[in-house]
């Protein structure tokens, strides 16, 4: 589904990503874990086409998207829930969902998808006329996920979805991610909460200062001594 090969990304003089490769197969949950500044968000932005790598290739669904523009990548079936939710605060919940469906060409089936999203997130239905910026952090996170789902993605990128949420909401978010995956959407998850991420993922990559230092089956990494020491406490 997604294959990232040896990408290098610079921010001006800063060498942020130093040759990272990873793969997400259809139907999987793959997670990238690592500390702050390891380059997780940069990788997400590069995959989505917001930033372009200096070298390396990104293949999505069999097509080279390394230099494809971000909005075209969304049309191809990749959606991202960005770090910090980034909902449109001055727009209503419904309008945020409409923005999520912006790239959709099949207008006919939209209504059914709003219903599906409202079913998954009943709170959003209650609040569909409310401005997104007035909702709580947890509700905004649900909206950010729902918004991304409205584009009917084949691959969903989630960047730190549990950040800043109360523990009970963290559990809820991870359950939702599991459900979305079960319903057939492939998932690439970036998390600081390594324990949670590893427990729902199939494969995992551990990042340190712009490089993959460890990769493998998530269950194995969960029990790996080095990972335990560094990320699971």
């Amino acid at each position, binding site marked *: 589904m997604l294959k990232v090969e040896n990408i290098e990304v610079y921010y001006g003089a800063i060498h942020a990503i130093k040759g990272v490769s990873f793969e997400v197969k259809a139907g999987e949950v793959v997670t990238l874990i690592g500390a702050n500044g390891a380059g997780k968000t940069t990788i997400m932005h590069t995959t*989505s086409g*917001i930033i372009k790598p200096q070298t390396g290739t990104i293949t999505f669904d069999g097509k080279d998207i390394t230099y494809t*523009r*971000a*909005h075209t990548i*969304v*049309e191809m079936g990749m*959606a*991202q829930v*960005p770090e*910090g939710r*980034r*909902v*449109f*605060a*001055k*727009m209503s919940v419904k*309008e945020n969902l*409409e*923005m*999520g469906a*912006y*790239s959709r060409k099949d207008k006919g089936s939209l209504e059914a998808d709003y219903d599906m999203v409202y079913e998954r997130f009943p709170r959003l239905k209650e609040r569909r006329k409310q401005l997104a*910026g*007035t*909702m*709580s*952090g947890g509700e*905004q996170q649900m909206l950010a996920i729902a*918004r991304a789902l409205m*584009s009917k993605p084949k691959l969903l990128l989630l960047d730190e979805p549990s950040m*800043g949420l109360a523990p009970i909401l963290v559990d809820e978010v991870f359950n939702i991610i599991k459900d979305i995956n079960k319903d057939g959407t492939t998932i690439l998850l970036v998390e600081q909460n390594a324990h949670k991420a590893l427990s729902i993922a199939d494969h995992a990559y551990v990042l340190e200062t712009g490089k993959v230092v460890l990769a493998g089956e998530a269950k194995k990494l969960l029990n790996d001594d080095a990972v335990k020491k560094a990320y699971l406490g």
Partner: protein
Amino acid sequence: MNQFIEQIIYGIQLGSIYALIALGYTMVYGIVKLINFAHGDILMMGAYFGLLSVTLLDIPFGLAIVLSMAVCAVIGMLIDIIAYKPLRNAPRISALITAIGVSLFLENIYRVMFGAETRKMVIPTSLTQTIAIGNIKISYVTLLTVFLTIICMVALQLVVKKTKVGKAMRAVSEDQQAARLMGVNVNLTISMTFALGSALAALGGVLYSVTYYQVEPYMGMMPGLKAFVAAVLGGIGIIPGAMFGGYALGLIENLAKAYVSSSWSNAIAFGILILILLFKPAGLFGKNVREKV
């Protein structure tokens, strides 16, 4: 009393024009955080296109307005693509200086092409007539200005609130990167904003030249500046604010002209502006919304 009502009506007429121009300032600022100082010159070009299409193409006045709006919409987009787009990630001051450059460029190009002299605007004779309601006389130009402005404002609100491109504009103005992640073509959306704003300015330009009977290359400067002030007064980036600011400025200016002194009218209008901004620095409609994170 009749004179007062007439002055109010003229104030609304002038305010309509300011509001039309202010909308473009505020929309462009809202989406790219740029004070487009060339915006007043779009008004000037709109007036020229209106004049030229009536005199050279010999088309009806109504059609001339539409043509002028369409041409200016395209020019507005071109200005964005040529002058501002390459500077999208540059410091904001660079784009601002560029805007001043574009403004001077347009003024001087028009001076070279059409001469510096003031041309008389051709107005259909039917528009110069007046109707009387009771003892109050209103010219058709006034009615046309007020009426067209209201139609455009309602249409603009519908576009921004209801259409896909309008929602994309609001999304881009709030969070460009997030909009891009929704599949929005950000550059295209910005171009559309320039096009819409420029079309409104062109309408403002034709109406302005019809009001004052004249067209000249520097005619955009003063109304452009005042419309900018109107946009700031209402709260820059806020569409209803620009509308309100335009009407407020037009009314204040006209009443000052009528009852205080015409040479003091600008000083009074800008003085009131300074006073309002002292107490409401974000403009009348602006507020510091705190977002939850």
